[in-house]
């Protein structure tokens, strides 16, 4: 068994048995469900809004070369500098070089999952730069030395007592069990860091081709500060974030907030179009944008799963996923957790090692229903399973499929086989059948009927 799969199975089993933690996650998500439903009810037709959101992404992704070209032209005209990175290593090298060329010392970051994807913090720290995550959840995870648990709610699994202890240990503050006070501790600590930092690194939620602006969505104001105070602003974004029109945001921004966090809009939705302009009193002197491929073109090349690139990273599919709620975000071992993570990680890191995530699904379809841009998530999990079997079938797959094929074509053999199967079914329960162990451990086999369906039909017994 591959490492990633073995670790996943172990962690998932432990976490699923931790009733306390599961109850804690369910409680934390309780408020989200209420608010999401309240906000969704304000939409005069949520399904039509989903149509518009999915079409906005579809039309950009399926014309990516042209739309991206237009975006880059406008972005550069606004005074920003574009850098291209085929993979994670190139993206890290570009950002390191900007930091070195400008003799930067302190770097402040706002939440950016793409930077987790390329392991940017490690690279910057190894090169001797101080990097601080400014989003409260990311800040807590950075102090804990742990990856985000959920790509929108990074530390939703951590109890307040643990956060208080963490702050006491690292910041020397007095213990408290008030979320408000804990937030204020982080606020006071981080404020000076924005003022002192030379470089601010942010992500981007949308790149607008029509105007050359980038759009950043957040609640805390840390991205606003990160892009306002340091003298250099670097944004890192996947190439699939581009949309055609500024007006597309009139649908995408509210839906992102409602689907992902149960808000009408997130607190700050900001459009940046370059460094400080003539006549403006503040803002960075340089504005860099690193555009990353890192296997996105591989997803693009699969027309069946291309819509996975429509993802606006709202997190709704995680919030409704029974698997996510039971095994937790860390067990996935991926940058992107939950259903969308299970769909795209095999493309990013290899199907053979990451296909097991697509197996960890009840295929209930809650994710597909929740997705504001109509990504066919649970079918993609099936596609991954099929593709993995095609790519490297196991011995069981081969024997079973060939055997089934052989039997199903021969009615007499099928009937005889059925008779033997019905007679021996009670025994099967007790036998250690290879590949069935995990399945049988938690399930009982049903009782066999006396007659096959075909016999029942013949005797009009149905």
């Amino acid at each position: 068994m591959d490492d990633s799969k073995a670790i996943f199975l172990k962690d998932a089993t432990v976490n699923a048995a931790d009733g306390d933690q599961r109850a804690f996650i369910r409680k934390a998500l309780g408020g989200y469900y209420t608010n999401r439903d309240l906000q969704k009810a304000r939409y005069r037709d949520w399904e039509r809004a989903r149509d518009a959101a999915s079409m906005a992404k579809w039309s950009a992704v399926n014309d990516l070369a042209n739309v991206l070209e237009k975006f880059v032209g406008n972005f550069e005209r606004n005074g920003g500098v574009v850098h291209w990175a085929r993979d994670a290593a190139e993206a890290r090298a570009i950002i390191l070089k900007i930091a070195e060329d400008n003799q930067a010392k302190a770097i402040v970051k706002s939440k950016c999952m793409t930077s987790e994807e390329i392991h940017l913090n490690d690279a910057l720290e190894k090169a001797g730069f101080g990097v601080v995550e400014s989003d409260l959840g990311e800040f807590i995870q950075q102090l804990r030395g742990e990856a985000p648990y959920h790509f929108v709610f990074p530390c939703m699994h951590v109890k307040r007592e643990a956060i208080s202890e963490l702050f006491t240990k690292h910041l020397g503050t007095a213990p408290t069990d008030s979320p408000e006070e804990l937030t204020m501790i982080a606020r006071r600590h981080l404020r000076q860091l924005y003022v002192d930092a030379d470089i601010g690194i942010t992500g981007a939620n949308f790149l607008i081709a029509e105007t050359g602006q980038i759009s950043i969505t957040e609640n805390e104001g840390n991205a606003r500060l990160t892009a306002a105070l340091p003298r250099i602003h670097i944004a890192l974004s996947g190439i699939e974030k581009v949309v055609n029109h500024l007006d597309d945001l009139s649908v995408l921004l509210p839906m992102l907030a409602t689907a992902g966090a149960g808000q009408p809009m997130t607190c700050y939705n900001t459009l940046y179009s370059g460094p400080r302009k003539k006549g403006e009193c503040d803002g960075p002197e340089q504005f860099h944008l690193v555009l990353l491929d890192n296997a996105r073109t591989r997803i693009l090349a699969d027309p069946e799963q291309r819509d996975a690139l429509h993802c606006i990273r709202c997190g709704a599919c995680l919030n409704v996923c029974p698997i996510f709620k039971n095994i937790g975000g860390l067990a996935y071992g991926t940058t992107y957790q939950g259903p969308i993570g299970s769909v795209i990680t095999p493309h990013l890191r290899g199907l053979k090692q990451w296909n097991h995530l697509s197996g960890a699904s009840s295929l209930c379809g809650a994710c597909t229903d929740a997705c504001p841009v109509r990504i066919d998530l649970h079918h993609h999990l099936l596609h991954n399973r099929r593709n993995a079997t095609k790519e490297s079938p196991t011995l069981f797959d081969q024997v079973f499929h060939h055997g089934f094929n052989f039997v199903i074509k021969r009615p007499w053999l099928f009937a005889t086989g059925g008779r033997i199967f019905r007679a021996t079914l009670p025994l099967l329960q007790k036998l250690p059948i290879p590949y069935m162990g995990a399945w049988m451990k938690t399930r009982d086999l049903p009782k066999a009927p006396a007659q096959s369906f075909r016999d029942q039909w013949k005797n009009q017994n149905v």
Partner: protein
Amino acid sequence: MSDARSDIFARIREALKVKAPKPHLKGEPVAGKTSAVAKPWLPDGGESADASLAILAEQLAKLKAVLIRVPDQAAAAKAVAELATAKNWQKVAYHGHPLLRPVAAALPCEAWEADASFEKQKLEGCDAGLTTCESIVAQLGAILVSSASSGGRALSILPHVHVVVAEAGQVVPDLGSALALAKARHGDQMPSMLSFITGPSRTGDIERILVLGAHGPKELYLVLVG
């Protein structure tokens, strides 16, 4: 070695040779590209000015932002001065705008026109930032500020309280209208920052419990004239 840009474009063009099906839509096909088309399926922003104002008031209240409606400029100045006294502000930074100068002049505390220089430390030490805005979106309770009309990027985010003074005529029904207005006003000379502010800064990162004032302002006041 070919450069990364042309490599990535080559990969994209190659990938797109095979077409992907359109998403399964539930309704009639939607035209997603014309600006300011009415979108009768999004949350309502009000069909008349009065309806929009009513929706705005409701949204702001839910967001825990404070709406203060005043009949004229003099009343706006008085309202902000009263706030300053009640909250014991010592220093207020403001954007030098015709709508704001009289308000700043009436303040009972130190008022600093922050447009000329970029002094981060000094701005951080201010109790409140006073700005105007581009427009106000009734549908969502969002206030659009810009680096052009609101005194730069930091003034509306760094001080602990943000006060916006605007005219009632700046209220637009929905987000699409606000974006279209910004485009019409600035053309291809967009301010380097345009930011929709929807309530005071907030976080739910600790146990998903809402706390106001994460990194940005803890309090947000909208003083609407007329």
